């Protein structure tokens, strides 16, 4: 594991610890021996060229790969404070997804009302009391900076929203269930620059509440929103560290080449 210099004033606590993670799509060895911490209430960015495995890595955290046959994990992603290896065969992926939420690349609201989109995760958890649902939906929409725009039309279809609003709705949906970690898979790649800015601002605000891991192909974005950055290449973790250090004085030549645009 790469040492991290303690620049931050508050003590950093690990929320998750990746140890010797290997991942296989059938025969293809997509992730190779990754070791990395994820710090609590911080934003960790995963960067690297297309096909480097950053999305594959992110989708390991909530066991999305279990939805498709032939995928195989080795190693551990330990979640703290209870020290559970979420990749262990005995751990139900549904339990993992109840603790770790995800926001996808393309906004994927359900063809239901705005309200039902946000409430869905709670309904899955068996919540049916109207008062609790109303409260949680409002709270999540406020956290996702969407409440003011939609409070008058909660029963309208989610598809009536703009792309950026849809993505914030997806963030609200993921937040409504109080996740321990929120995963973002290139959340702004389908959005225009203004919507992108609002999502980035939101991510910045959210880190007070939740631990965030974000995949991005946009290095400026990683520099803007993250506290820690991991640079990946061909399924390997090349370098992990405090974002400022990774971008200003990376330790590895490969990282420097990628960040300065000589490669990738």
């Amino acid at each position, binding site marked *: 594991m790469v040492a991290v210099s303690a620049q931050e004033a508050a003590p950093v606590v690990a929320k998750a610890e990746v140890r010797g993670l290997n991942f296989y799509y059938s025969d293809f060895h997509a992730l190779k021996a990754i070791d990395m911490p994820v710090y609590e209430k911080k934003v960790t960015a995963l960067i690297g060229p297309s096909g480097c495995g950053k999305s594959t890595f992110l989708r390991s955290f*909530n066991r*999305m790969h279990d*939805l498709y*046959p032939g995928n195989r994990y080795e190693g551990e992603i330990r979640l703290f404070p209870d020290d559970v290896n979420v990749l262990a065969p005995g751990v139900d992926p*549904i*339990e993992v*997804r*109840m603790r770790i*939420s*995800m926001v*996808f690349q*393309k906004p*994927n*609201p*359900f*063809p239901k009302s705005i309200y039902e989109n946000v409430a*869905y*995760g709670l*309904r*899955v*958890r068996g919540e049916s009391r109207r008062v609790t649902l109303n409260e949680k939906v409002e709270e999540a929409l406020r956290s996702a900076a969407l409440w003011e725009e939609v409070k008058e039309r909660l029963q309208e*279809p989610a*598809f009536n929203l703009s792309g950026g609003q849809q993505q914030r709705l*997806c963030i609200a*949906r*993921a937040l409504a*269930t109080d996740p321990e970690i929120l995963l973002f898979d290139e959340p702004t790649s389908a959005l225009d620059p203004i919507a992108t800015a609002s999502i980035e601002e939101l991510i910045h605000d959210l880190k007070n509440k939740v631990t965030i891991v974000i995949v991005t192909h946009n290095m400026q974005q990683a520099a803007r929103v993250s506290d820690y950055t991991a640079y990946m290449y061909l399924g390997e973790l090349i370098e992990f560290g405090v974002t400022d250090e990774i971008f200003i004085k990376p330790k590895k030549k490969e990282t420097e080449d990628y960040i300065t645009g000589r490669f990738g």
Partner: protein
Amino acid sequence: MEAARDLGAIRALIAKHKRWDMIFGLCGLLALMIGVLTFAALFVDMAIDGIPRLNWDFFTSFPSRKPAQAGILSAWVGSSLVMLVTAFFAVPLGVAAGIYLEEYAPKNWVTDVIEINITNLAGVPSIVYGLLALGLFVYQFGFGQSVLSAGLTLALLILPVVIVATREAIRSIPQGIREGAYALGSTQWQVCKDHIIPYSMPGILTGVIIGMARAIGETAPIITIGALTFIAFLPGAPLKAEPPFVSFEWLFSGFTVMPIQMFNWTSRPEAAFQQNAAAAGFVLVLMTLAMNGFAIWLRYSLRKKIKW
């Protein structure tokens, strides 16, 4: 500056290419018209023969030896009841099978074999279903030559159509929607009941109705299981005045259906019965068109709510 192009030559070339455009367009139109006009001619011919026979009595009278008094009461009631039974069995079975194949079935050779078989089943001649039903429903299960046997037979017949329509509808749901639901901690069944089934409903219903429109015109399997051609009674009413108020007697009643009634009349020598057959055919085509129209309307109105 560039030398002036030979515009005349270019235009001549374009004109030549466009001639082929027009020739193919005409060929296509001709091909289309052969199909459409043939149907239109048949329909108009039938309408001219049949419409004078259409009146209230025609719908409320039983068949008769006297052509002027004969009606299609037992036929349209029989067709409707058989369709009811068909839908009752084909929809849940077909939808459940389709969902299982798309969402639950492991991707292995067993699933592949089942898939190929379902596609083939859709192409099995309907008379073969009739033979199967005669042996299985009529004799083995002892349902007799009844509405129930006919409904089950036609349900089997349209089951592949329903399964295929269900699968097509499910496949059109973007994977992102599934992943979004799973990422919130849903189980497979929660994903199916809250997302897959509601979002694929327009497609499923369209497939069901198109299958039913096919089934309502089926004659061969119904004859095979022994539907009667001359029926002067109606199946027992499903509701009764005395307890237990509902009755399923009608399921085991003898029956006839529209196409069989038509067939019966066409085989008579009297010209007046031919007129009756034309009138019944006209009604049957209208029933089919109405069902298809309903399917189109349903798809349109349900789809409005769902956009990808």
